[in-house]
């Protein structure tokens, strides 16, 4: 760059000759030079600003464009991750308490057709009708040859054999879509607990599997939640025990010509249900449709153990006796006047047979005297009885994890009169379900703390609120044991397991009011082993008749009790309970003989 001098000699000389100040020229030139410098600096700064602006613009444009693309693109699974993906898209399995599968998924296929790419619609329709007996050939052909149709659903679910057969037709217009199918490998076992599943929203390539009833419905959100990573749902049901219970109960039901039966086996301290059987049952893989007419209780879908609200009869006497003992109104040896019939207005309370003029409180329960229990109930009255039964959970629906549970609200008299108090004390006038009864009996025998029934495996059970004192519970255990050793449930004796319990035979109410003659619900509420009860078992039979004797016997002692005893005999060893049998004492070591 050529530097222009600030004091050019020619101009200085010229200025001097004219008598002007030459410094003015220097100042003038200095000013011009500064202006030129300033202009250059401005242009450069402007250029930099432009570049900066362009860069910001490009950066924001890139981010914006990328966001737009991401928003518009189809969702895809993240395939490239460093760790194993913890997201599971399939419905979680359901396991029993020992980890055996109760419900799992199987990939099958659905079948659909695209008529416009079909080559031989007639042959395809004919062969499809040959494979699936429920499809109509003419209707299929009409659908396949309809020019307006481009898509026809044919079957929701195919078995692998059917898939192969359809494949063998070789028709390019018949297409398969993958379908996850819910499989219950154990068939009818625990059907009422599991409920069933069906398809929700359906597309060609996938369909939602949603729970319809039972735990599948209640835990639908949990089972479908991808964030669980496919962690299974573990129930408190034990598959083996459930199978043994169902087998014995079904045999008993058939032998006694009962219309239905229910059994609940519950852990006495935690309220975990180990087996819950309701007969007749159904196959959850092929869930029947609900009845549209008639009595819903006749449907195999009806869960007698949870939904079946019955007047349970004499099994309720335990609660009246327990309350009177707990409140210190009586002791086990207090003598009660049981001369009958007991008249109340136009109502008479009688006993099954005459037990004499008086019995001790203990004998009232062991011999099952209606009059005696009614007299005991009169001691504490309606208000306290209601409050006591409420604490046992007998007056509201259980919070069992089944869709049916909240609908099963016990039915009780609106006006809880003194007469109601007396009838409820021996189990008439208040309807509740076998599960209610199991929870209440668990509280009676486990030392006196309330339990809430559950179908979930709980890692640790906190004892519930106290209902009766531990001492009362011990008395009740003693009395229930005596019912078996010397009372109405003598057939319940299982050597080694010290079964105790209370029978109950309730007349079946007519839907039109009043009671049926000769139709009963026989119940047996049992616990074992009685010195420290681990399990509570409820067996209920609907209209059983024992015809092995000379005349038909319907009382629980002849029907529900032997069935319950067989269930205990079969399930107790499976529950890892050692029988307490006095063995021949063995002294020292005995050498084996070969």
């Amino acid at each position, binding site marked *: 760059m050529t530097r222009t001098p600030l004091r050019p000699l020619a101009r200085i000389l010229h200025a001097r000759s004219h008598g002007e100040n030459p410094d003015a020229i220097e100042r003038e030139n200095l000013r011009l030079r500064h202006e030129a410098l300033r202009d250059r600096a401005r242009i450069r700064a402007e250029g930099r600003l432009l570049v900066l602006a362009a860069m910001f613009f490009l950066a924001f444009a890139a981010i914006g464009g990328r966001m737009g693309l991401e928003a518009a693109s189809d969702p895809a699974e993240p395939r*490239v991750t460093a760790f194993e993906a913890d997201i599971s898209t399939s419905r979680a399995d359901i396991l029993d308490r020992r980890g055996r599968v109760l419900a*799992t*998924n*199987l990939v099958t296929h659905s079948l659909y057709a695209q008529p416009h790419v079909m080559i031989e619609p007639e042959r395809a329709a004919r062969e499809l009708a040959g494979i699936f007996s429920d499809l109509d050939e003419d209707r299929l052909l009409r659908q396949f040859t309809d020019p307006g149709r481009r898509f026809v659903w044919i079957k929701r679910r195919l078995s692998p054999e059917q898939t192969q057969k359809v494949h063998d037709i070789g028709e390019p217009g018949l297409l398969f879509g993958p379908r996850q199918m819910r499989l219950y490998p154990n*068939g*009818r*076992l625990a059907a009422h607990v599991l409920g069933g599943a069906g398809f929700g929203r359906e597309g060609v390539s996938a369909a939602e599997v949603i729970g319809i009833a039972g735990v599948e419905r209640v835990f639908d959100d949990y089972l479908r939640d991808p964030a669980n990573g496919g962690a299974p749902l573990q129930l408190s049901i034990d*598959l083996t025990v459930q199978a043994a219970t169902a087998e014995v109960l079904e045999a008993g039901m058939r032998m006694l010509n009962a219309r239905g039966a229910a059994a609940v086996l519950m852990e006495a301290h935690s309220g975990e249900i180990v087996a819950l059987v309701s007969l007749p049952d159904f196959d959850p893989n092929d869930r029947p449709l609900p009845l549209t007419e008639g009595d819903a209780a006749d449907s195999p879908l009806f869960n007698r153990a949870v939904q079946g609200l019955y007047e349970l009869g004499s099994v309720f006497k335990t609660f009246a006796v327990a309350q009177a003992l707990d409140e210190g109104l009586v002791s086990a040896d207090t003598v009660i006047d049981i001369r009958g019939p007991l008249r109340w207005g136009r109502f008479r309370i009688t006993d099954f047979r005459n037990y004499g003029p008086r019995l001790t409180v203990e004998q009232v329960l062991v011999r099952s005297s209606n009059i005696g229990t009614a007299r005991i109930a009169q001691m504490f009255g309606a208000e306290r009885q209601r409050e006591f039964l409420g604490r046992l959970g007998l007056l509201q629906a259980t919070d069992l994890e089944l869709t049916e549970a909240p609908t099963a609200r016990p039915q009780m008299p609106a006006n809880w009169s003194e007469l109601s108090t007396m009838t409820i004390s021996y189990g008439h006038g208040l309807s509740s379900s076998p599960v209610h009864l199991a929870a209440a009996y668990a509280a009676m025998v486990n030392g006196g703390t309330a339990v809430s029934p559950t179908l979930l495996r709980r890692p640790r059970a906190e004892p519930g609120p106290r209902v009766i004192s531990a001492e009362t519970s011990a008395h009740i255990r003693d009395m229930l044991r005596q019912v078996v050793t010397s009372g109405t449930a003598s057939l319940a004796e299982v050597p*080694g397991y010290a079964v105790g319990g209370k029978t109950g035979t309730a007349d079946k109410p007519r839907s039109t009011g009043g009671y049926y003659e000769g139709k009963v619900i026989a119940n047996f509420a049992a616990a074992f082993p009685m010195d420290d009860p681990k399990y509570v078992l409820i067996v209920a039979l609907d209209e059983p008749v024992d015809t092995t004797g000379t005349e038909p016997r319907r009382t629980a002692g002849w029907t529900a009790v032997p069935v319950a005893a067989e269930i205990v005999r079969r399930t107790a060893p499976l529950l890892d309970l050692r029988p307490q*049998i006095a063995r021949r004492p063995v002294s020292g070591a005995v050498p084996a003989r070969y």
Partner: protein
Amino acid sequence: MRGLFYVLAAVAVIGLAFWAYRETHQTQRAVAELRQLQREISALREAIDVQRAEWAYLSRPDRLRELVAINFERLQLMPVMPEQFGDVEQVAYPPPVIPAPASPQEAIAGFDPAPSDDSEDLP
């Protein structure tokens, strides 16, 4: 000096570009391999699920009960019953095996409270 700087910068840019290209290529190959493996894993998982379902189906209590009934003559399996529990004391001890002593010395050595290793070397 300045020219050398430009040359070095150009070489560095070319080198980095080559390195970046190679890394990208390797990443893509690894991703492709990963996809393949993941496909295999999911196929195997599905197969395991099917096997589990089949195992559960084949060992369902109904079927086992039938099999036990069919093969009763050979297997003689019965449901577990309370009578089948026993005590440890009921299990008999095996009779002690007492080897006959080869020589009186050995017999004596057997009763030695602390037999030494060289007991057999005794005359």
